[in-house]
């Protein structure tokens, strides 16, 4: 498996995703500069966390104009698996790869801590190795992770089973208190209709080694490895 980690100016979890992919999972990965126009034959694309363009104006607002985003869009529309983590998720929303938008956290503060998320859907390339209802302990670190979409959009997400992760208690219960940022429907992550594009606010790459407090994020990356191996996925570039 070959992973392209996109580097925008201001990305700061690019090395973390790269480390998880290479040092922890033993896969190959490339850091791809946002001005490049080539995904270098990647099987999987990761838009990492950070503060692309400083998150000035709005989170993720300027990154969507980067040249590499045309390639990412094309890769996604060919069915290639794309994962957006935190700021990467925000970039996906701004770029229209996923529906909705982010508001500031309910209490207006940046929040960094471990939270629990429940896997709602296992027919995406990034959750294929999970159990439905599995609760993962994964850190969040964001100031604007309060997911918003109009009620009809939320209804559509529900109906199409596009809500992939929800914030819950350790026991897997959706409660107001377990929702750290006020997200609509406790949404922590969603996918597109074709299910190959997944965005989530929590940071699975920060939870890949037990020495860091949790290895629950590994299953996200193992899922995509498994999906690729089983041929369930058409790697964007392979097909091209």
């Amino acid at each position, binding site marked *: 498996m070959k992973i392209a980690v996109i580097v925008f100016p201001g990305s700061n*979890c690019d090395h973390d995703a790269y480390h998880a992919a290479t040092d922890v999972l033993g896969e190959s990965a490339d850091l791809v500069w946002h001005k490049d126009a080539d995904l270098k034959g990647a099987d999987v694309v990761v838009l990492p*966390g950070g*503060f692309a*363009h400083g998150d000035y104006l709005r989170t993720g607002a300027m990154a969507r104009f980067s040249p590499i985003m045309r390639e990412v869009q094309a890769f996604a529309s060919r069915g290639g698996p794309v994962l957006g983590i935190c700021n990467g998720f925000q970039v996906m929303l701004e770029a229209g790869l996923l529906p909705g938008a982010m508001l500031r956290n309910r209490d207006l503060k940046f929040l960094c801590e471990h939270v629990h998320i429940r896997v709602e859907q296992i027919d995406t390339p990034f959750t294929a190795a999970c159990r439905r209802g599995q609760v993962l302990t994964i*850190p969040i670190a964001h100031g604007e992770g309060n997911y918003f979409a109009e009620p009809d959009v939320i209804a559509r997400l529900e109906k199409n089973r596009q809500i992939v992760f929800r914030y819950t208690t350790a026991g897997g219960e959706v409660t107001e208190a377990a929702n750290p940022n006020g997200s609509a429907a406790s949404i922590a992550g969603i996918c597109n209709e074709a299910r190959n594009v997944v965005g989530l606010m929590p940071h699975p790459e920060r939870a890949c080694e037990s020495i*860091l407090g949790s290895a629950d994020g590994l299953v996200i990356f193992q899922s995509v490895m498994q999906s690729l191996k089983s041929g369930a996925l058409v790697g964007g570039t392979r097909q091209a």
Partner: protein
Amino acid sequence: MIEAPVIERHGLKPDEYDRIVSLLGREPNLTELGIFSVMWSEHCSYKSSRVHLKTLPTDGPQVLQGPGENAGAIDIGDGLAAVFKIESHNHPSFIEPYQGAATGVGGIIRDIFTMGARPIALMNSLRFGSLDEPGSRRILEGVVAGIAGYGNSIGIPTIGGEIAFEPSYAGNPLVNVFCLGTVKASDIIKGVASGAGNAVYYVGAKTGRDGIHGATMASAEFDDKSAEKRPAVQVGDPFMEKLLLEACLEVMRTDALIGIQDMGAAGLTCSTTEMGSRGGAGIEIDVSLVPQRESGMTPYETMLSESQERMLLVVKKGREQEVERVFEKWDLHAVHIGEVTADGLLRVKNRGEVVAEIPNRALTDEAPVYRRPMEMPAYLAEVQALDLDALGPVPRAEQALLALLASPAIASKRWVYRQYDHMVRTNTVNLPGLGAGVVRIKGTPRALSMSVDGNGRYCYLDPYRGAMLAVAEAARNVACTGARPLGATNCLNFGNPERPAIMWQFAKAVEGIGVACRALDVPITGGNVSLYNETDGNPIYPTPVIGVVGMLEHADRVLSRRFQAAGDAVILLGDGFGELGGSELLKVVCGLVRGAPPALDLKAERALQELLVTLAQSQLIRSAHDCSDGGIAVTLAECCFDADGTAADVAIDGVDVARDERVNVAAALFGESASRVVVSAAPGAAPKVLELAAAAGVPGRLIGRTGGDVLRIAVAGRVAVELPIHDAEDAWATALERYFARRVA
């Protein structure tokens, strides 16, 4: 001819001006006067502190870079170095808490990557007035948001720190920021200019009129008139700094650089002068080439601006394009503004015309050095006297413990650190709140442990002992994680050095730091001095803050304060003497700031720390937590917190310090005797732990067991505390956020 009021407005004394004239052999022009004034300011010249700082121990086989560069460096094995330093941004944070703190973070990060190191950890040490004051809450909220806003954005985890509250900081908060980076030792790069003809480059944000005379401002007391002196506040641009950080680290890999320095205090002036002076060279620049944000800036303004996020580079002749290309990649435009010369002069031109010409040495080596008069402060004798028999009624131990746990100095700082990204870069193995911050070093089995500590109240009561205790505590915190302390940095926050009493505090504190660092073998590799921390003549408590860095051989054997399992043995290492002087108990419960701070036996302290490292690395103990604010009772409670409700049942010795039995119990529970650590161990390992302690000459006693959901502490055989751990944890965990409920960001 420059008039006396102009000289005074530049913060220069008449004799200092005369010295300038004699060094130049002529009268300076206004631009030159401005340059002298910032370079000779307290902030840049260390004129009051230098003679004292010279006495600090700075050597050791582990020291790769001592004071004098942008940051210090120690050897951490495998050819790697840890580069670290602490700096203050007190005055700017008082004027504008968010931006002041944010730009403080930006400044210390630049000091680290300037050395070629990639910054991997931040910490901070903060002081505010009482949280009962709305003003202090507002400042704290702004400072924390500013630290978060900058550090989170640039992607360097803030892994620890400390916060204390005393009325003396109400009009003069302290914001000290620490940063640590790692680099291959052979790749350390310095702030030197050498080789006549090499190119001088400017890169980063454009220069504006912001912060002009920031360095002189940091060297003067506040008074009612200072509002006029206040220059426009500097606004931090973490995105620009992130680009600079990545671009500079990439340029450094090209081997095209001679030297590099950030433009911090005194901006272009300080960076050109210091780089030239270190390399024994001169520098010539043309200010008309400097990218400017505002029109019509004079050479004076350009040289003195403190606009943030700017770097000065000396590039090998012929390698310019290579360097420019890297910066272009990051959308930064490096601008060639001058050359290194052989004449040792700082020569500033404006469109070819010389507007300032000063020997570098006159600005640096020839800067004034003062041995200012000192005198023991009159208040000391009075406040050191403490009669425990005259304390009056002391509340029941449980009540006192709950009050201490909810006191802002002791309460959980989670409300603060959850606003900091403390996990980015995936190295943090001890999260904030668990003791010293610990980051692993990827590619090695090791980890670095670090802690910043200081106790202004102790130093107010006895600056010498207080400073020693700060060194001991920082090193002990590092040792509690299982790491061997290797080196230290210090930030010295004091009042107006022109007052003999303040100067005495300063000298005593530096002396204490030196003695403690020698005894514990943690040389000082750098630091920062912040003087004139006074408002309307009221100085802050003398506040030396010490940052200690240590190393763990096995990152996965790191320890935290938390008990790990029920049924473990609880062991106290070190002896308690019921010392209540300067304690949190006296302050919070009795409303007294009195007495002598606890005694410190540095030999015992060192033995304790070495024992801790041995015990941790041999995996004989499962947790370790030192006794400091609030004494052993608070320590034991904290060992139980965040531990899934695992409480403990322990019995400690009584002390005999007063006639009243309740005072004796309080002293045993809440006295802050130094050099004590509570550890837990699997029952089978306890005898071995005690045996090793005895062999090391460290007093060790099995005092109880973990387990249950009630914290029970018996003193001299009688149960003094019996608290459901949930209640105690609740008081401690929610205290801070209760102060900030329903406030606007």
